[in-house]
């Protein structure tokens, strides 16, 4: 049980990273590879936030009941992950517009057939 307490978030984050890497390395359809990229990014963001967690901490926001800075969770990884999520969306949009261009030009989305058709 104490093993679970310490490591459950790390197991979840790295499980996602490995599944995303496996999908990107093995599959041949272009859109499947981009789905693997999206799963990989979710795993990396989860790992970054779980590194910044402090035991028995609260959210880093002052309010009418929380007026002095006691046990607060680390706010710096949260700012970095906010940027990373938005940039992930920008990369997905650009990659999928290239998918539409590929389909229009070659007629298929299978990368093995596109490599053979090159000349």
């Amino acid at each position, binding site marked *: 049980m104490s093993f679970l307490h310490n490591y459950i978030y790390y197991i979840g984050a790295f499980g996602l990273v490995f599944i995303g*890497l496996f999908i990107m390395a093995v599959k041949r359809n272009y859109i499947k590879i981009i789905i693997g990229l999206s799963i990989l990014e979710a795993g990396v963001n989860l790992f970054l936030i779980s590194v910044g967690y402090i035991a028995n901490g609260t959210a880093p926001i002052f309010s009418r009941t929380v007026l002095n800075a006691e046990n607060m969770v680390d706010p710096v990884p*949260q*700012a970095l992950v906010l*940027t990373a999520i938005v940039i992930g969306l920008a990369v997905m949009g650009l990659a999928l517009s290239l998918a539409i261009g590929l389909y229009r030009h070659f007629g298929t989305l299978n990368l093995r057939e596109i490599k053979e058709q090159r000349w």
Partner: protein
Amino acid sequence: MRKIIGIILLIIIAWGIGTSLQEIPFGISRAKLADHYIHNGKEETGAANIVTSVVVSYRSLDTLGEVTVLFLAAIGLGAVLAALKQKSVKESEKASLILSTGCRLLFPLILLFGAYIFIHGHLTPGGGFQGGAIVASAFVLMYLGCHKEKKINETGSILSESLGGLAFIVIGLIGLAIGTGYFLNNFLPKGEFNTLLSAGIIPIIYIAIGFKVGAELSKIIDLLMEES
């Protein structure tokens, strides 16, 4: 064959990461920068949300870089899709009456909710990027419900995106000219804590970012769904 090589490589990487994860204990604080931001953030910036003060005031140059990357992605998407002009061969059926009426009813409410989130970014969890994404999802709802009847106003979208980005840079340059003289300085007075008009330039920058991100993401959806 490819799968077996993939699995062997991933097992080697997993063993390496697993042994190095023993050095990172879970739930123990080891950063000194976070102590400075938590204890001094309230006096130096005046914002109640510490993550907002880190994103907009302490590391505002990184936010400028992020806005630039979004802008570049939207330009690249427009350039790739403008070269393909294809006639749509798939027909779509018209939405039913309940769906289109419901979409028209919900659209101003979702816009209002998105505007509330990016205006109160320094008091509650939220901010410019989350509010801009909610505004963009309101436009996605309009495209799904009332397709081919209503489109995004071109002039309004271009104006709000450009003016949002311009406002961010102009406020940064004004901070360079007056005050103690560095880029994106917090030069407006920090008012009373935990009210709407407080924390200097932080709400103004977040409103500009909210407009810019909302217009940009709805433009991306509009370019992808264009069928003619």
